């Protein structure tokens, strides 16, 4: 892959970032209404009061300076103080992101792996019983709402069988003597959320992969490879899977890149203290700084995911590299 291609994509990504962040800045300033009156009608009614408030919020400066300050705070992840927790949003998010990553980085790759493998197996047995079983069952599971599926699993393994704890990330109030004990407790709490999460997402990967494989199977170069004397397994490994992975790679990278923004229903249901849960709670609490920060991070994640997709796609498909 050429250096030029990467630089090209990098510039494009930076441009996207600047554009979206600036749009965020502009949108609110274009909205009708006076922010100072919203802060306090009494203070803003007197000229001195207005001046104090303007100074306090930096609104006395020219727009271009305000923009500079805003950009600086965005780039340094300085999002102000949470209304609810009264702590800096940046510190608050750090922990939650870590927790979401623990959950997501276990569950999402697992789900993707199951989906892709299942898709390969189903397509290799296209039209046979194994294919029908795999495809139908994954479609049914995919159609089931995540929260319902998670609740069923929770009921069976957490309540009836009592094998796993029913909520949170660690045993509340527990202190761990060793790292191993901590990990053991964490792992114990993780099993069902990770499983539910993986089961919830694997279906779409399976269906995409299967369809994409079946398309590739009918390509002329696959027939040529067969004519060359390749047996079925090497044929699938060398000529079908790499080409079938192209369309699915986009959604794989995207899912991995946005893992840290959390999984709403799973985190809420299992009281997993991650970003998803925090966001849902912040909405109900009208905790604006947190919501804004979360939205900003999601936007950054999507832009980053796009950049990664371009790079990986260029690596997978030589036809893209020149672009």
């Amino acid at each position, binding site marked *: 892959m050429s250096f030029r291609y990467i630089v090209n994509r990098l510039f494009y990504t930076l441009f996207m970032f600047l554009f979206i962040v600036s749009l965020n800045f502009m949108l609110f300033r274009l909205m009708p209404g006076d922010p100072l009156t919203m802060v306090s009608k009494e203070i803003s009614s007197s000229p001195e009061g207005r001046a104090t408030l303007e100074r306090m919020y930096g609104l006395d400066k020219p727009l271009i300076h305000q923009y500079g300050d805003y950009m600086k705070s965005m780039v340094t992840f300085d999002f102000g103080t949470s209304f609810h927790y009264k702590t800096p949003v940046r510190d608050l998010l750090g922990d939650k992101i870590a927790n979401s990553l623990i959950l997501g980085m276990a569950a999402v790759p697992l789900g993707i792996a199951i989906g892709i493998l299942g898709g390969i197996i189903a397509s290799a047995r296209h039209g046979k019983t194994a294919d029908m079983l795999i495809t139908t069952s994954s479609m049914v599971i995919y159609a089931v709402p995540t929260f319902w599926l998670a609740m069923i699993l929770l009921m069976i393994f957490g309540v009836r069988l009592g094998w796993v704890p029913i909520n949170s990330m660690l045993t509340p109030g527990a202190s761990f003597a060793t790292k191993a004990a901590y990990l053991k407790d964490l792992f114990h709490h993780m099993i069902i959320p990770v499983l539910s999460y993986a089961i919830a997402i694997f279906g779409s990967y399976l269906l995409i992969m299967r369809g994409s494989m079946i398309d590739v199977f009918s390509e002329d*170069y696959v*027939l040529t490879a067969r*004519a*060359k*004397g390749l047996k079925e397994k090497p044929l699938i490994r060398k*000529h079908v899977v*790499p080409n079938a992975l192209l369309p699915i790679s986009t959604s794989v990278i995207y899912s991995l890149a946005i893992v840290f923004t959390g999984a709403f229903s799973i985190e809420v249901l299992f009281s997993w203290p991650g970003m998803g849960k925090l966001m849902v709670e912040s909405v109900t609490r009208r905790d604006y700084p947190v919501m804004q920060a979360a939205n900003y991070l999601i936007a950054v994640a999507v832009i980053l995911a796009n950049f990664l997709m371009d790079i990986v796609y260029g690596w997978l*498909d*030589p036809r893209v590299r020149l672009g």
Partner: protein
Amino acid sequence: MSEVLLELDNLKTYFTVTKGKVKAVDGVSFTLNRGESLGLVGESGCGKTTTALSIIKLLPKEGQIEGGRILFEGKDITHQTEDELSDFRWKQVSMIFQGAMNALNPVKRVCDQVAEPILLHEYTTKKQAMERVKELFELVELDTNLMYSYPHEFSGGMRQRAIIAMALACHPKLIIGDEPTTALDVMVQAQILDLINELRGKLNMSMLMITHDLSIISDTCDKVAIMYAGRIVEMGETKEVLSNSLHPYTKKLISAFPNIYAERKMVDSIPGDPPDLYTPPPGCRFAKRCHMVGGKEVCQVEIHPPLIDYTGKGHYVACHLWRNPDEY
């Protein structure tokens, strides 16, 4: 000299569909000698490609060889196991496919694709294989500096040359060309055909050329077999068959080609469609569209006429009325 390389003996390849069996190839027999080239001509759906795919056993899963034998160097290969087959494919018989533009995998370098059968069939190192790829590139007159390119960086003609190089990789005894020049413009087509002719002479390979284009046959083939509705209706030396055709279908096919030296007129066409191969008619399969039948019962009712060398010149024809060539 005339050592038989490939012999098809009453080959029957049927496709099983929900309502029954489609008799795509229904009793095809021919022999191909070492170093010889045979053209298989006919309109779409007459069983040309199915015949070729039967030989290297790459039929779609609905297709099945239901009868007859395929002898390669005297050995019946009709019931080979998968292991025997993967040794046989490309090493003995390689194939240049229809729609060759897509016969190269877009995400693999051309040299790797040409080297693939070498590494698969011959015990060589990657380096030796690459040396061989280089030789092959020179053989098909491609710039060896382009070896490491990807298919999308090649023009249509270059891709076709690369595919020919790939087909030659393991010194096959037989090359099957399934409309190898269909997607190319006429200039490139002529170049590719010249190349194929030249290489075939140089390497003493046999070739089975599948096409609907009679001009390609007269350029490249020693013998020609005309297929209609799953059967060979006429077969013989190319010159003899094209200039002295006996079967009404062959005649129609030839007159459907414009002659640039003759007076300009509308080319001929054959009214009607080929018969449904699910329930082929009892008599001659061409009878419904034949301009010679004129109500003759023998064509409609009796069995399909057998392919017989009536003249004793190695010119086979399957027609009850072959003696009446001037009726047209």
